[in-house]
């Protein structure tokens, strides 16, 4: 199993990084360059806007990850606070989950497009408040989306990553005896917030470290979100690298490779800085713990955080709503709050023509997530039968493709694929998707697999059931729900892939996401709305199936 992991995941990533590194140091045989030199790096540092790109990348990456983490932890604390009635939106708690799921399911690009439709000078927000409040008859001449500081990009990242981290944390918190530990701390006079700081966060963070680092790496290296929400001149480093790779002048391939490798190094440095900061924070917390200070209730801070949390979720949800509205709009001119005439032409066309993008997306998603689930199950079953456990190293290996910036190895991988004769077919793209789908599938499955009460298997075996019988009739039946959920997560991850599809598919395989992103800069918001929403709808459909199919099956059995 480890061999398959190494060949399936490690080799492509390492090979891709290797090719990128070679090119970064001037070796690109396809261009007739065979000599080791540093000119690509010199060229890179002299490219216009390089330092600005670097600054933008760091600001948006760290700000987005930090804010997401703070809001996540606050969200958890708030969700678990059973004895405090003072928050004004306490009654909204039941509505949070339905808000989270669609944002979680929607690909990054869909959220980005929706947010752009919301925040743009001619976006829905200005339309809602014009002209009665703002007196604007025309879209104001302001830069909101694609602002020079990358703040809208940061906001987009926060909106998308917050639900992910939140869900991961809520699952992780189940491993901590939360309510009793909080009771103990509070009974000693600690305020709720202080108890979280000193007791819960130091235990929670190690459990969510890996996902947080994945978010950090993603935020520092996203291309599709930067394309839609980020500034253009100059863009973030990842997007700039992408542009250099695609430059008409193929001489740019070398500095592009240097930039890709530089992004990889930047990632290592960033992870180091992040972890050092977190370690320092934990250390300070520990020293503060020794003083025995009980802390106060920070009403102002918690109200501010609560407001920020609500705002983030609301903006995320509205981003999807505005996609829906645009996809059914016919005539919607500024500053009308809603379209003046509606049409379902785009949807009708889509359903009657069943465009390639949709076919490809579904094929890639079904293919990669099914393979990922089968492989994950095979792995776990082999471990059950022949012993062995997932070591930390193996876990990090599985996570590896998520911890390396996509652009740092995908171009190299493409070159590698070309060299061994794999030329941008569907199979190659499925493989590329698998690199990112498998980690999520495996990690969503592993806890439920381990949590399965082994005594059921012992009972079955003692009744004469064979090992295969146990596998099919006990394990898979009992684990149907987590299996389907893992599969749905795989589908959501695959649908959202932009760069792997574009690069490994050599631009020839269009999917909902590649289409949505390339249309996003165009003028027809109605069409973009359709594609953006469809991108979100497929995963939502998969999640819905995963949640309701097991219920349907058990219902059927009850009726029998």
């Amino acid at each position: 199993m480890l061999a398959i992991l190494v060949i399936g995941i490690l080799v492509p990533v390492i090979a891709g990084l290797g090719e990128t590194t070679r090119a970064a140091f001037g070796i690109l045989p396809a261009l007739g360059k065979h000599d080791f030199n540093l000119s690509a790096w010199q060229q890179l540092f002299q490219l216009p806007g390089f330092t600005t790109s670097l600054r933008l990348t760091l600001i948006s990456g760290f700000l987005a990850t930090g804010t997401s983490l703070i809001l996540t932890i606050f969200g958890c604390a708030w969700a678990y606070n059973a004895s405090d009635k003072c928050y004004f939106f306490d009654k909204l708690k039941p509505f949070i989950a339905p808000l989270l799921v669609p944002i979680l399911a929607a690909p990054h690009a869909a959220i980005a497009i929706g947010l752009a439709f919301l925040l743009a000078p001619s976006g829905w927000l200005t339309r809602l408040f014009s002209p009665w409040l703002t007196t604007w008859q025309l879209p104001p001449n302001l830069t909101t989306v694609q602002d020079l500081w990358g703040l809208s990009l940061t906001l987009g990242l926060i909106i998308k990553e917050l639900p992910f981290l939140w869900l991961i944390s809520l699952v992780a918190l189940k491993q901590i005896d939360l309510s009793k530990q909080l009771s103990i701390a509070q009974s000693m006079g600690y305020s709720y917030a202080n108890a979280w700081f000193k007791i819960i966060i130091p235990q929670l963070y190690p459990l969510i470290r890996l996902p947080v680092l994945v978010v950090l790496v993603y935020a520092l290296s996203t291309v599709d979100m930067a394309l839609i929400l980020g500034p253009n001149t100059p863009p973030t480093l990842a997007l700039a690298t992408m542009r250099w790779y695609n430059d008409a002048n193929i001489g740019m391939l070398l500095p592009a490779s240097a930039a890709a490798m530089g992004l990889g190094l930047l990632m290592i440095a960033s992870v180091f800085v992040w972890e050092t900061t977190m370690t320092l924070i934990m250390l300070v917390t520990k020293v503060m713990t020794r003083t025995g200070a009980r802390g106060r209730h920070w009403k102002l801070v918690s109200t501010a955080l609560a407001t920020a949390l609500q705002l983030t979720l609301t903006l995320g949800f509205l981003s999807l709503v505005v996609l829906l509205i645009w996809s059914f709009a016919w005539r919607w001119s500024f500053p009308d709050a809603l379209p003046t005439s509606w049409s379902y032409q785009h949807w009708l066309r889509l359903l009657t023509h069943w465009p390639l993008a949709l076919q490809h997306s579904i094929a890639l998603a079904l293919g990669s997530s099914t393979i990922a689930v089968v492989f994950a199950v095979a792995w776990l079953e082999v471990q059950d039968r022949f012993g062995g456990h997932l070591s930390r190293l193996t876990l990090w290996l599985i996570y590896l493709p998520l911890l390396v910036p996509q652009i740092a190895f995908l171009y190299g991988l493409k070159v590698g694929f070309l060299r061994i004769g794999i030329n941008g077919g569907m199979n190659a793209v499925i493989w590329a998707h698998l690199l990112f789908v498998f980690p999520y599938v495996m990690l969503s499955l592993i806890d439920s697999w381990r949590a399965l009460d082994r005594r059921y298997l012992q009972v079955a075996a003692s009744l004469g059931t064979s090992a295969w019988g146990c596998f099919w009739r006990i394990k898979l039946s009992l684990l149907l729900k987590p299996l389907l959920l893992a599969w749905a997560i795989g589908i959501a991850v695959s649908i959202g892939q932009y760069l792997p599809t574009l690069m490994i598919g050599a631009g020839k395989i269009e999917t909902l996401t590649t289409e949505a992103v390339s249309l996003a800069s165009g003028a027809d918001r109605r069409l973009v709305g359709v594609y953006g929403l469809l991108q979100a709808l497929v995963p939502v459909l998969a999640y819905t199936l995963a949640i309701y199919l097991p219920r349907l099956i058990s219902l059927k059995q009850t009726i029998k």
Partner: protein
Amino acid sequence: MSLELRSLTATLADNSPLFSPVDLAVAKGEVACVMGPSGVGKSTLLNIIGGHLDVHFGIAGDVVLNGKSVKYLTAAQRKIGVLFQDPLLFPHLSVGDNLAFGLCSSVVGAKKRRLAIDQALAQAQLKGFYHRNPATLSGGQQSRAALMRALLARPQALLLDEPFSKLDENLKHAMRDFLFDQARQRLIPIILVTHDPKDMTDANGPVALLQAL
């Protein structure tokens, strides 16, 4: 000066009480026992007294500590310590830092605090355990450390939810003596939820029998 429960019970959304209202007066240094069948609401009763009750429940009756009602105070304001079945030493802190977490903040200065903790460790026969990871301690040692942590916060009362029930008979007995001893020395009223009739005879204090309705 004591802890008093006056017709205390938890109520559901329709105002119906969860269990028969409890009246109990515990003097300083006295150990009261709460007994009753499983699932009747003994832990809920402790949650009401300590201020840890989920907002979905209501409270009828009153909790009076040293002559003042604490019904409307938060858990952090009440100064009523709790001990659960499991010691629940915080796993990310050393044994000593766990005690430091408990030690009240009026003891100021690193040296003074360290001294107070070392004294407490010695009292609990845990001398030299400051830097130990709690997970490396035996069950009895963990329970004693948890008790010292609770006492260092200088609680006005102490609530125990079937403490030590996971320890074997001998250890349990020793723990109980240690606890009762500490309570009497420090003049703290204690309420003990238990299934064990022997606890009741040893405690030799008032008893409340919780009944379902």
